[in-house]
C-alpha cells in the first residue's frame, strides 16, 4: 500500500499591503516560515511546486531560493493550481521522486494593481479568444454570466449572493490578520455597493492583497522526526471543463463535481463527514457553485443553504473560516492560503475562529473562469 502523505509545515509572508517587498521576497518569507514550522532546513527541500506568470517562474524561483530540486512542477491552472499541486506532490512523494515538497506562492497583487489595470492591457485577441474578447467580456463579466444563469434556473437572488460576502466578513471579524477585520459588512451594504458586471456588485468581488503562503509535504515516515503532528492528505482530485464561457456545456454546474468525487472517493468520505470547508471565493457565486457541485447541498439550493447560516460561525458547515478571499487575504490566488487555514483548524490553532474538534477539512481551488477545479481532503 502507498505511503500516507502529510502536511508538516505551513507559513505565511507579510500580507495585506506591503509595497516595499518584491514578489520573490514574499515567496521566501512564506517558505522560510513553513520550514521553521516543520523543523526543516532549505537543503531538505527536493521538490518544488509553484507557478507564476510565465515559464521562467519556476527557474527564477528555484534560483532565488538557492534550491536545486530533484522534482519540479509548475502546472499552471490559475486558482486551481495549488490544490492540484497537492495531488501531484503526493504522487511524487509516494513514488520517491522527492522526499520533501515545498508549495509556495507570493504576489504583489495589491501593490501592482494600478500597473495591471492600465488601459492598454486589453490586448488584441488571438486564437479562439477572438470570438470572445471583441465583445468586451471582462473577467468579472465571465463570472456574472454563470451567476445570471444560476439565478434564472433556480431563482437565486442578489441577497443570497450578498449573504456569502457577509458570512465571509463575519469570519474575518474573528481573524485579527484579515484585511476586513474591524470593518463589518451588512447585507444592505453589499446590495448597495456599485454594480460591476450585473448581477455582481463590488461586494461580490474579492480583495486584492499582497502576500504569500507555503506548505510543506512529506511522507508519514519522514514526518515522525519532525516538530509538528502531521495533517494527512486523505484524498485529492482534479478536473477541467472549458476556457471560453461559450464552451462550458454544463454551465452553471461546475466541474468540482468531478474533482470532489475523485477526492472524496480516495478519502473514503462523504460531504456530511466534512467539519471545515475552504473554497476559493474570488466571487460570491464561486461559493454557491462549489457547494452544489461538491454535494454539500442539492442543485439550486445553495442560496438558501448560505442564508440559513450553515457556513457561518456556529453553522453546520463552517466555510472559509479565516474570511477567505472576500474578506481576509487574496494575493492573486487563494490556494495555499486555503490549505494553511485548513491545517490551522485541524491542528486546533484557529483561535477565536476555531471549529470545535475539527477532524476533516476540504479545500477546493478554482482556476480560470470556473474552468478548473482541484479538491483536497485533509485529516488529522
Amino acid at each position: 500500500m502507498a505511503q500516507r502523505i502529510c502536511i508538516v509545515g505551513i507559513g505565511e509572508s507579510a500580507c495585506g499591503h506591503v509595497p516595499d517587498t518584491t514578489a520573490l521576497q514574499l515567496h521566501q518569507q512564506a517558505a522560510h516560515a513553513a520550514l521553521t514550522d516543520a523543523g526543516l532546513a532549505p537543503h531538505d527541500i527536493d521538490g518544488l511546486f509553484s507557478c507564476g506568470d510565465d515559464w521562467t517562474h519556476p527557474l527564477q524561483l528555484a534560483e532565488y531560493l538557492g534550491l536545486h530540486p530533484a522534482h519540479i512542477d509548475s502546472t499552471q491552472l490559475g486558482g486551481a493550481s495549488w490544490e492540484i499541486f497537492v495531488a501531484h506532490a503526493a504522487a511524487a512523494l509516494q513514488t520517491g521522486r522527492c522526499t520533501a515538497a515545498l508549495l509556495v506562492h507570493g504576489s504583489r497583487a495589491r501593490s501592482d494593481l494600478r500597473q495591471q489595470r492600465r488601459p492598454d492591457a486589453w490586448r488584441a485577441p488571438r486564437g479562439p479568444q477572438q470570438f470572445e474578447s471583441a465583445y468586451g467580456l471582462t473577467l468579472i463579466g465571465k463570472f456574472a454570466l454563470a451567476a445570471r444563469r444560476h439565478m434564472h434556473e433556480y431563482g437565486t437572488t442578489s441577497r443570497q449572493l450578498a449573504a456569502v460576502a457577509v458570512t465571509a466578513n463575519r469570519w474575518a471579524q474573528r481573524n485579527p490578520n484579515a484585511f476586513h477585520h474591524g470593518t463589518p459588512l451588512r447585507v444592505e451594504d453589499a446590495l448597495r455597493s456599485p454594480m460591476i458586471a450585473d448581477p455582481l456588485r463590488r461586494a461580490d468581488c474579492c480583495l486584492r492583497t499582497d502576500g504569500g503562503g507555503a506548505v510543506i509535504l512529506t511522507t508519514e515516515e519522514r514526518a515522525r522526526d519532525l516538530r509538528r503532528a502531521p495533517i494527512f492528505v486523505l484524498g485529492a482530485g482534479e478536473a477541467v471543463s472549458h476556457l471560453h464561457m461559450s464552451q462550458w456545456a454544463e454551465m452553471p454546474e461546475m466541474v468540482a463535481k468531478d474533482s470532489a468525487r475523485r477526492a472524496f472517493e480516495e478519502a473514503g468520505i462523504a460531504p456530511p463527514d466534512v467539519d471545515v470547508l475552504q473554497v476559493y471565493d474570488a466571487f460570491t457565486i464561486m461559493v454557491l457553485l462549489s457547494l452544489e457541485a461538491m454535494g454539500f447541498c442539492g442543485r439550486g439550493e445553495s442560496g438558501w443553504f448560505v442564508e440559513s447560516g450553515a457556513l457561518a460561525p456556529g453553522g453546520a458547515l463552517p466555510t472559509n473560516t479565516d474570511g477567505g478571499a472576500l474578506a481576509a487575504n487574496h494575493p492573486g490566488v487563494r490556494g495555499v492560503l486555503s490549505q494553511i487555514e485548513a491545517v490551522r483548524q485541524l491542528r486546533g490553532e484557529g483561535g477565536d475562529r476555531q471549529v470545535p474538534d475539527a477532524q476533516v477539512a476540504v479545500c477546493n481551488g478554482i482556476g480560470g473562469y470556473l474552468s478548473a477545479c482541484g479538491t483536497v481532503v485533509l485529516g488529522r
Partner: protein
Amino acid sequence: MSAHKATAWGYLPVIDAESAPFWAGAQRHKFLFRHCNHCGRNHFYPRHACPACWSDNCEWRAAAGTGRVFSYTVIHQNDNLPFRDVLPYIVALIDLSEGIRVTTNIVECTPETVHVGMPVEVVYEAITDTVTLPQFRPALRAAS
C-alpha cells in the same frame, strides 16, 4: 446602441487560418459555423477538425441567424477603450437554432429588457475593411 465605436481597435480579432472564412462570411452578412460530415455535429468557435470525433471532414455552413439568450451580463465597469465609452453594455451567450453557443453583444436593447430566453437575431456592424462584427438584437421575427 452599439457597444463599439471606431476609436480604439487594438483588441480587434487577429484573423488566422481557422477563423478567416468566418470573418469573410461576416463581411457578406453570413454567420458561418462548422458542420462535421462524419458525426453530424455542429460546432463553434470554428476548428479545422471536429472537437467531438476529431474528423477533419468538416464544412462551413451558414446559420439562420436566430437564437435565444442562454445568459447575459450588463458590464458597468471596463477601463479599456472602446468599451469604457459605451458603458453599460450587454454581453450574452446565445444558443443559435443550429445548436451552437456564441458569445456576443446584444444591441438595440436596454439593460432593463434583456432576459434569459429572449429571442434574438443577428445584425452586422462593419468595424474596419476586414472586420465586420456579428452582434444580436431582440428578434423582430420568432426564433425557429
